Structure formats: structure tokens, C-alpha cells
């Protein structure tokens, strides 16, 4: 059930008050202790289990039913019909509360749902849109394949027309969250036509016969991503996104949503780059006087601050009517540089306490962070791919 939309939009202040009243009821305010070291999420790729995903679903349902789950969505599809600045306003209020981990929903709400809303048929949206925003369903991204990583246009998974729909055969890889997902955003080859004009996007039911999910253990030790085998999987034509053979455009839109989510989220919004918390941590472990540690801290602080402003400038440009574009690639490169600077700071601060778990609080836990940094350089388009995009689209260089 969704809250019936207000006939006139509340003012931002009214809206924030409404959000605070809701959160007061369902969550605890974030206390000093809770926001400090002890509870801090140090991992970039926390392997979500099915149980984590269930907890995230339950929370999302509560939020949705109170009218905050799909704030800027069209009313007729289950959204609240408010402008997107209300989304930011809600998040601002929500940060003051201690809420459950939502990383299991990142791909689903950040990439799959907006792509569906932009390209789906009325039937597909009716079937999945509200379900995704309410956490009743979770979506994953079935793009990459063993032979198609950076070169996404090379996907070889085939979708063949069959009376009332399609039959899909192939293999996907590194699918984050496939093990708890209900629906997959699939890119498949539908013709022998030229590159970029031979792919079609679909929503595939992850519980359909012929879908097999095998976990892959990732560097950090968790198993957040998977191989997905598709063997004669049937998809109704109404679950196609966009036109036949025009899936490339759909995929590009998804990647834009992804880059915006990654570049903005700064490590999944885990608060790793909260400078006051970092400074507090350095004092707590007694490393705040070392001149090299201080330098390393200041380097992170500088990079994070400038990257935030750079992103805000890009967003202001979008608001002023410029099309959103390759700035997101710059944001991601800035994020990668900041992640490296933070890894250096952590190493300087901890020394051997980073490499063996001596039991001291807030020390060895950082290994998960350090081990996650290579993944951030690869997922969502590698550093090199981002540079190619910027070289071509921003600098106008003759990149192939």
C-alpha cells in the first residue's frame, strides 16, 4: 500500500518535518557513540547475505509505506510525485538516524529501477516498479560476461524470439547480489547486425526455470558477486526494455545511473570519508601527533573536499540545464584517488596492526577496506575506460 499523494506538494520544510516525525517513530537517533568508530562500516564491498538483504527489504518497505521510498516517482506508478530535491531532503534527515544497512539494495534502487522506469512497458512497470521501490523485489545487473567486461558491446548471451516472447542462453559474470535478487536487468544479443545495434535489454525473472546462480568468492573474502548461467530462460516480450536491437542505449543509461551512484556515494555512503570521524579515530589510536600521519590525513581531507565540490559543480550544471555527462567519469577517478590516499593513511597509521589482528579495536578491520580498493577501480567501468570517455567526450581527443 502506498500513501495517497498530496494534492499540493508540501514545502521542503514541511516535508522534512514529516520525515523526522516518521523516523522518530521507527528509528533511533544516531548517537555520538553509534556514529563513532565502533559501529563504522569499514568495508567497500560488504558481502550481503540473504539475511542482510531481507533486513534491507523490511526497512525499505517501512520507508515506502510511509511515503519516502520513491519520492520522485510518478504517482500513477506508485511514486510520490515530488521533485528530486525532496529525495536529497529526505536523505539529509535520515542521516541523523541510525538505520539498517541498505547496501543490498544499491544496484536495485540505483540502477535497475530507474532504467525500468525510463524504458519499461506499462506492463513491466506495473509488475516490477513499485515492487522494486518497496523492497518486495530486488534487482541485479546482468551485463558483464567472461568475454565482455570493459567491452560491454561484445556480450554473447543470445536472446531468440519465440512465439510470444524470447528464449535466452548464455553466461553472465560478477553479478553483484544475484544470490538474493528477484529480477535481473539483462543485456543480450538479438541480431547479427552491427556493433551497438544488435543488443536488447530485458528484465528477467531470476526465479525462472533455467537461471542458475553460482557464488564467486571475492578478494575481501565475502561472496557478494556471482556467475549466472542462463539456459533456455523464457522472457515475455512485455519485459523487454526499449526497442529490439536498441539495448545499447538502455545500457548506457544504466551505466550513467551507476556512475552517478558510485561517484556520489563515495564508498557506498558508508561514511568512510567523514573527516571528523577519521580525525577522531586517529586521536583514539594515538597516531594524531605523527607528522607523516598528519600529512596523510590532510591529503585525504583535501582530496575529498575538492571532489565533493567538483561533483556539486557538475550537479549545478545539470540543474542549469546542461546534459549530465562525462563529469561522472571524473568524479569516479577522483574517488579512486581518494580511496588510495585513504589506504595510505590507514597503512601509515596502523603499521603492523593492519596486517595481524592484535585484537585492538578499529585496527585490523581496516584490512577489509584496503582489500576492497582494487574492486572500486574495476567495477562500474575501469579507470582506463573512464579516461577514454573523458578524453573523447570532454577533451575531444581522437580516441577510438
Amino acid at each position, binding site marked *: 500500500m502506498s500513501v495517497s499523494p498530496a494534492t499540493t506538494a508540501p514545502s521542503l520544510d514541511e516535508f522534512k518535518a514529516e520525515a523526522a516525525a516518521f523516523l522518530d517513530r521507527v528509528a533511533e537517533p544516531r548517537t555520538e557513540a553509534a556514529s563513532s568508530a565502533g559501529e563504522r562500516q569499514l568495508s567497500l564491498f560488504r558481502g550481503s547475505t540473504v539475511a542482510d538483504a531481507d533486513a534491507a527489504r523490511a526497512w525499505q518497505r517501512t520507508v515506502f509505506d510511509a511515503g519516502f521510498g520513491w519520492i520522485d516517482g510518478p504517482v500513477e506508478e506508485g511514486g510520490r510525485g515530488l521533485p528530486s530535491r525532496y529525495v536529497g531532503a529526505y536523505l539529509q534527515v535520515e542521516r541523523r538516524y541510525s538505520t539498517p544497512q541498505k547496501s543490498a539494495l544499491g544496484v536495485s534502487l540505483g540502477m535497475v529501477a530507474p532504467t525500468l522506469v525510463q524504458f519499461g512497458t506499462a506492463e513491466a512497470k506495473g509488475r516490477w516498479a513499485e515492487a522494486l521501490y518497496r523492497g518486495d523485489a530486488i534487482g541485479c545487473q546482468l551485463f558483464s560476461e567472461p568475454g565482455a567486461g570493459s567491452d560491454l558491446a561484445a556480450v554473447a548471451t543470445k536472446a531468440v524470439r519465440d512465439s510470444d516472447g524470447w528464449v535466452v542462453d548464455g553466461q553472465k559474470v560478477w553479478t553483484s547480489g544475484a544470490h538474493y535478487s528477484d529480477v535481473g536487468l539483462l543485456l543480450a544479443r538479438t541480431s547479427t547486425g552491427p556493433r551497438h545495434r544488435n543488443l536488447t535489454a530485458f528484465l528477467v525473472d531470476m526465479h525462472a526455470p533455467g537461471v542458475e546462480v553460482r557464488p564467486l568468492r571475492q578478494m575481501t573474502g565475502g561472496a557478494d558477486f556471482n556467475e549466472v548461467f542462463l539456459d533456455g530462460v523464457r522472457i515475455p516480450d512485455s519485459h523487454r526494455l526499449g526497442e529490439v536491437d536498441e539495448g545499447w542505449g538502455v545500457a548506457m543509461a544504466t551505466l550513467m545511473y551507476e556512475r552517478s551512484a558510485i561517484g556520489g556515494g563515495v564508498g557506498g555512503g558508508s561514511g568512510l570519508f567523514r573527516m571528523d570521524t577519521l580525525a577522531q579515530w586517529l586521536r583514539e589510536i594515538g597516531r594524531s601527533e605523527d607528522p607523516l600521519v598528519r600529512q596523510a590525513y590532510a591529503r585525504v581531507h583535501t582530496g575529498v573536499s575538492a571532489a565533493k565540490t567538483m561533483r556539486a559543480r557538475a550537479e549545478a550544471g545539470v540543474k542549469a540545464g546542461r546534459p549530465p555527462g562525462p563529469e561522472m567519469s571524473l568524479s569516479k577517478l577522483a574517488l579512486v584517488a581518494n580511496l588510495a590516499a585513504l589506504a595510505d593513511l590507514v597503512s601509515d597509521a596502523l*603499521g*603492523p596492526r593492519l596486517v595481524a589482528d*592484535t585484537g585492538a579495536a578499529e585496527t585490523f578491520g581496516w584490512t577489509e577496506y584496503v582489500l576492497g580498493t582494487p574492486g572500486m577501480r*574495476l567495477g562500474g567501468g575501469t579507470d582506463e575506460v573512464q579516461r577514454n570517455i573523458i578524453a573523447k567526450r570532454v577533451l575531444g581527443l581522437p580516441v577510438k
Partner: protein
Amino acid sequence: MTALVPTPERLELREAVRKSLQRHPGPRGFLAEQPSGKWFDASLLEDLNRQLGLAELLVPIGCGGAGGQLADAAIVFEELGAALAPVPLFATVALATSALVASGGEAAATLLGRIARGEATVALADARCGLPDDHRFVAVPRAGGGWLVSGRSGVVIEGAGADVLLVTAETGDGVTLFAVEADASGVQRRPLRTLDLTRGIAEVVLDGARAEQTGASGGGRAAADLAWDVGSVLLAAEQVGGAQRVLDTAVEYAKQRVQFDQKIGSFQQISSKLVDLLLDVEMARSALATAVDAADEHWEDRGEDTRLALLREASLAKALCSDSYMHVADEGLHVVGGIGFTWEHDAHLYFRRAKSTQQLLGSPDSHRERLAKAAGL
């Protein structure tokens, strides 16, 4: 400079170590079937010792060892590092043997003999090879002879399985080296969770454990410092071996992997990255060669001048090789792409080793600081 061009004997040694290592499953294979809680491969260790006598390599001939040079040991550790061999040789061969050789005296000679005969593995518990701010042992004479040692050391490399613990402890006459049999009463060891899955680290707590003095009273600091420097050089050798292997793997991959209808090595971002990594490896190898020579010169003459040169070169090499290895491990993983971020590939194990060795035995920053100090700054 002997380490610049390996002698035919050393090339043979390298080949022999390589062959022994190839007969075993490698770190990924070992970790996949490893009995829980055990980080080292006992059958590989046995092979290496039986076929190559690695334990006795640096033990002087007078104590029953092979009397090898550090240039020999450097080749061995390069190969062990290249293969990420999960064997507890670093503590015994690199750290404990050098501390005992530096100590001299009868007790040290006896323990060196046990090492050479493969009767004992030995770990060194010292601040500079462990956790500088979490190492403190105090020794008091025991009625009826010997000593009793109490205290703790937070990080002891390969400490959990060693037969003997060599510890630096405070006495009325200054820091002195003592040997504690690991099965003596009052000895507690706790294997720690580690970033590097192919090398064990333990915490050691002693509560009035019986100990034998090994070396002159007040000579413990100098002995452990020599172990620190020799250990830094041999850890740098491990790093060079590891970095070279990661680079080779990445180059090979760049020649095979096709994206956008081209070998990824044909993209200039990838080819120039790989050239930069080669520069890292060759600079590291060069720093290592000088350090190995400095170590051998001091190993020969025990003089004060050569000691100072060793300090300088060891710190220089440890700083440079640590940073090079970390960079190569990070970028090498990046070149193999998503598969490198999984346990289906070795890349993450090298990354773990690189980060771990970077911080053990002194961070690059601390070694650069030491070099500047040695230069009179």
C-alpha cells in the same frame, strides 16, 4: 659486486628451488585444501629442507651449517616470494639465524646446530621485527641456573609453530637475547588472523618461562638489530620475486586478453602502465643487489664500517622494494580485471603479501627516516 651477476652455482640454486616449488600446488591450491587453522604447507617445507637444505643455508660451517652467503639466501627468498610459498622459513633462516650468528657464544652455536640439522625451527620476538610499541620481556636469574622470562610481544612472525622462541628481554645488564623452548611451561602463543594468508603471525606471552641466555649480556639489541637488517634485505628479496611474478603474469595476460577486438596490451594506457611496473621491478632489483652485497660484506668482516653500510642499504632496499611491490601488486591486479578481484586468481594473494611485507619490519617511511638519519641529517 657479487649480487649483480649471479654465478652459475646461484643460477643452479634458483632452478632447484623453482623445481621443488613447482611440484607443489601453489598457494591457491594449498589454501583450497588447507586443514583449518594451519597456514603452512608441511610437505612443501619438508621437501625444501630435504632436497635443498634451506634451514642450514646461512648457518656457519663451524656450527654444522652450509656456510652460505646472503646472496644465496636472497635467491632462495626471491623464489619463495615469487611462488608465495606458505612455509615458515623466513623466521628461522632470515631472522633467528642472523641474530644467533651475531650473538656468538656456545649456547647460540648449539641452537644454530639444531637449526642446521632440521631439529628446530626458531622465531624471533623483538620490537623492531614485530610491534614496536607492544614488545616487552623482562628476564630474571633463576635459582639454580638459567633465567625466567615474563612479558609479551604482540606480533611474532611465524611464531605459532616454531620450536624455539628467541626473545629480546631486559635484564639488569641491558637487553639480552634468550632462547625459550616453545613447549616449556609459562609459554602461551596465539596465532592471529592475518591479512597475508600465506604467512603466520602470532602473539607470544611468557609468564616466568625458563630461558637460556644466548649471547653476551647486554648484547641483545645489537644481535636483534642485525637480524632486523638482514631480515629487511631478505624480505626485500621476497618482494622483488613477488613483484616480478605479478608483472610477468600481467604482461602475459595483456598479450592474450582481447577487448574491443584488440589485445589489451595494445592499449597505450595498459602498455605504458606495464612499462612503469617494469621500472619498479628493475629499480627494486637494483636496490636489492646493493643491499645483498652490503650484507655479505658485513657477514664476512663484522666490522663497524660495513655494519653502517648494511644499515643504510637495508633501509634503502626495504623502503624501495616495499613500495614497488605494493604498486606492482595493485596495478598488476588491475590489469587482469574482475577475475583478479576473486579467489579464482592469485592476484589478491600477492596484494595481501605486498601490503603485509610493506608494514612488517618497519614501514617505508620509517626506513627512509632511518636512511636520512644515517646520512647525518
